[in-house]
């Protein structure tokens, strides 16, 4: 929403430390009336909502924006930069008329650091003291009116979980129009001359704004700060030997001194000064050197069990609904190209998008619970050292393991990783984990080349091969991460300095909001790309050059076929020949020389092309090529494929060498348009999915090649 379109509407920003209960407050204030998007150019979630305020002039609508959590106005990550720009750049489209600062009452000292910085920017501020219930439990007493006096802004006590104080907060938002009269920290003392001169150049009259501006000159993009002024400012800073970092350290120390004085006056702390006892006890168990890992494994096991069990049912329902929808459409529209496009192109594409919803919703529900309870940061804590060796982060564990279900939600969950390099590596290697779409391909291929009753000691060999494929995927992911750690250049410093929040019960409403939010984001952003690619693939596999398709149909209208074959058999033969002479078929044939070293023929080539939509399409394409009219029946496809003879050599096509070569190809190659779409969405560049496609392709090609020539 641009500011100009709503000139008279009040713009309110919500700011606070991470874990301060900011999102819960946002949800309580706006309800389901939210718009979710992205801040332009970066992968930072942007949430906006509407807020109804009672004013003397009647009800007034205000827009509320949820800015990313930050600890100070010295940004150290992209998230924090977004918050910084919105608050410090008056030309920014999200620059607020009023800022609500959410402070964690149990962590008041640290919260007041950010809070006092924002107050010193001289903008209207309301301070919301959140988690008052917990503070009372810890016997922390806060004198709100004293605090309000010391800061010069209204202070509202709040319990966002229970919804207490929300109405009072709304009243305060409606009433507050003035900024604080006093400077909490006299920044003028730190670099007096410089600040006065900065104020002249950039035409601001607030000392702290001038200081912050000089401190973050390379980040801020003030419109009214043209390059001349910027150069002038830089000269000025050089002249005064303005050492941004030293001054920042000095400012932080001085600010904390003032805060300590304020705390002295307004806070009375009871006995339990250390972190609370329950958290201490739970930490002893959950970060224990044995039990910590055992519990983590059990938690993971439960999550994946429930994803596989519970997501399977709605996924089945969604698939059935779309099947019915396409049958209905086919019956009610005249046959022809247009209907075919709608049914096999668009509806099939939409179905391919919708089928991910249950998995995404469930995985993010679990992630929200893990985050909300405070357990997630403990997982990072116990896994960090292990993961760091491979260029990953303690937080990479969840995306990597979620990749076993599906790379799409897994890559979306990598957003929690703050460090750019570690996040990129996680995104790049996650699709190597064997996802559930590979399972039908593996099952079919294993049944082709490994006898059902083969035993290795008392283990079933088919099962062992399947397990080996999962293990190979995992090892490839770890190995690629290790390689990328060396290659990738990082722009930002990696920090692991982070809060371990106290354990809490999950806020179920938040869990619900997160589910809705993630599904929306996936549908709106990745969904478009997926539908577009599936329409392209549909065109490729349902059209051929010239009138080759018509000739196939003509051929099967001849009496000799009609008398010999049933209608279903004829339909299957037509489908098979059409696919062969379609553009996809031609591509399959064209690439045969390239894939022959891997042991693949053009029929497999066609499947490789159509599998770009999704890996499991392999099975369907194989059944079309081998004109099996019952695609659900794996056994009949298997028999056809087993019987296939290579016309050149007179040998079977699907030898163990070909089977294993193909399995490895599917284990490594990036054959999933949904993943490609999500990687683009999460990285904002086509560069990354392209690199990923190429490196995984090379990995697939080389390993298939080696295994084929080894086994041949």
């Amino acid at each position, binding site marked *: 929403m641009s500011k100009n379109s709503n000139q008279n509407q009040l713009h309110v920003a919500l700011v606070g430390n991470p874990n301060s209960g900011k999102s819960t407050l946002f949800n309580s204030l706006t309800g389901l009336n939210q718009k979710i998007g992205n801040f332009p150019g970066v992968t930072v979630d942007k949430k906006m909502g509407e807020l109804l305020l009672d004013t003397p002039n009647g009800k007034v609508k205000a827009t509320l924006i949820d800015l990313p959590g930050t600890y100070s106005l010295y940004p150290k990550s992209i998230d924090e930069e977004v918050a910084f720009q919105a608050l410090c750049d008056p030309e920014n489209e999200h620059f607020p008329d009023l800022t609500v600062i959410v402070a964690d009452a149990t962590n008041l000292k640290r919260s007041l*650091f950010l809070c006092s910085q924002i107050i010193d920017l001289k903008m209207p501020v309301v301070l919301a003291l959140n988690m008052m219930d917990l503070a009372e439990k810890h016997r922390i007493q806060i004198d709100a009116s004293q605090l309000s006096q010391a800061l010069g802004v209204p202070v509202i006590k709040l319990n966002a979980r229970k919804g207490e104080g929300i109405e009072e907060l709304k009243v305060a938002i409606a009433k507050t129009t003035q900024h604080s009269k006093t400077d909490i920290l006299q920044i003028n003392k730190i670099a007096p001359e410089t600040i006065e001169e900065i104020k002249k150049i950039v035409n601001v009259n607030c000392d702290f704004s001038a200081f912050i501006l000089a401190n973050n000159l390379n980040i801020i993009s003030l419109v009214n700060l043209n390059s001349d002024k910027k150069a002038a400012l830089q000269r000025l800073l050089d002249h005064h030997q303005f050492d941004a970092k030293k001054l920042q350290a000095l400012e932080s120390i001085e600010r904390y001194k003032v805060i300590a004085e304020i705390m002295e006056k307004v806070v009375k702390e009871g006995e339990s000064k250390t972190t609370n006892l329950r958290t201490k006890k739970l930490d002893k168990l959950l970060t224990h050197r044995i039990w910590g890992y055992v519990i983590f494994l059990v938690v993971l096991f439960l999550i994946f069990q429930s994803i596989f069990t519970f997501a399977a049912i709605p996924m089945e329902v969604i698939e059935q609904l779309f099947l019915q929808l396409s049958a209905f459409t086919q019956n009610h529209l005249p046959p022809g190209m247009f209907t075919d496009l709608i049914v096999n192109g668009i509806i099939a594409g939409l179905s391919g998008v919708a089928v991910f919803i249950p998995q995404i919703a469930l995985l993010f529900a679990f992630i929200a619970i893990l985050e909300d309870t405070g357990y997630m940061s403990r997982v990072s804590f116990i896994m960090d050292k292990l993961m760091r060796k491979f260029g990953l982060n303690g937080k990479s564990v969840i995306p990597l393991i979620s990749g076993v279900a599906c790379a799409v939600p897994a890559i979306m969950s990598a957003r929690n990783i703050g460090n750019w390099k570690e996040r990129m590596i996680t995104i790049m290697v996650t699709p190597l984990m064997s996802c559930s779409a590979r399972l039908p391909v593996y099952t079919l291929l294993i049944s082709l080349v490994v006898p059902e009753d083969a035993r290795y000691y008392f283990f079933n060999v088919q099962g062992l091969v399947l397990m080996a494929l999962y293990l190979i995927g995992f090892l490839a992911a770890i190995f690629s991460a290790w390689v990328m750690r060396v290659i990738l250049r990082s722009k930002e410093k990696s920090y692991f300095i982070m*809060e371990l929040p106290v354990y809490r019960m999950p806020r179920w409403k938040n869990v619900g909001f997160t589910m809705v939010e993630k599904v929306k984001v996936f549908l709106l952003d990745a969904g478009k790309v997926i539908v577009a690619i599936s329409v392209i693939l549909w065109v490729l596999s349902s059209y051929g050059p010239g009138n080759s398709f018509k000739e196939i149909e003509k051929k099967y209208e001849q009496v000799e076929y009609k008398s010999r074959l049933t209608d279903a058999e004829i339909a299957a033969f037509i489908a098979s020949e059409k696919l062969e002479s379609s553009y996809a078929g031609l591509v399959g044939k064209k690439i045969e020389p390239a894939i022959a070293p891997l042991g693949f023929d053009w029929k497999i080539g066609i499947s490789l092309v159509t599998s770009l939509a999704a890996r499991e399409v392999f099975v369907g394409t194989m059944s079309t090529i081998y004109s099996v009219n019952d695609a659900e029946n794996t056994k009949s496809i298997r028999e056809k494929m087993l019987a296939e003879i290579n016309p050149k050599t007179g040998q079977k096509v699907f030898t163990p060498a070909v089977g294993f070569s193909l399995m490895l190809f599917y284990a490594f190659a990036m054959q999933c348009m949904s993943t490609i779409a999500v990687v683009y969405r999460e990285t904002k560049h086509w560069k990354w999915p392209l690199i990923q496609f190429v490196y995984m392709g090379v990995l697939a090609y080389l390993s298939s090649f080696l295994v084929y020539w080894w086994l041949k």
Partner: protein
Amino acid sequence: MVENLAELTEGESARILSFTDLEMSLKFLEMGCIPGEIITLERIAPLGDPIAISVAGYLLSMRRSEAATVVIKRLSASQNK
């Protein structure tokens, strides 16, 4: 003798004196680790790294390499209570 935060054992308390890495110190400072503040090493991760300290009433985790940039003075056992 100069001691740093990475040298503490579990349960030991110390006073923060200064920092050896300016860049890193900025992050520590905004998180409330200011010179003069008393911190306690609460937990060491099972593999020996990272560690978690309590500061200003909350738990803060960090890698050992990061903790090594914080210069501290151990408090004697009697002050520890």
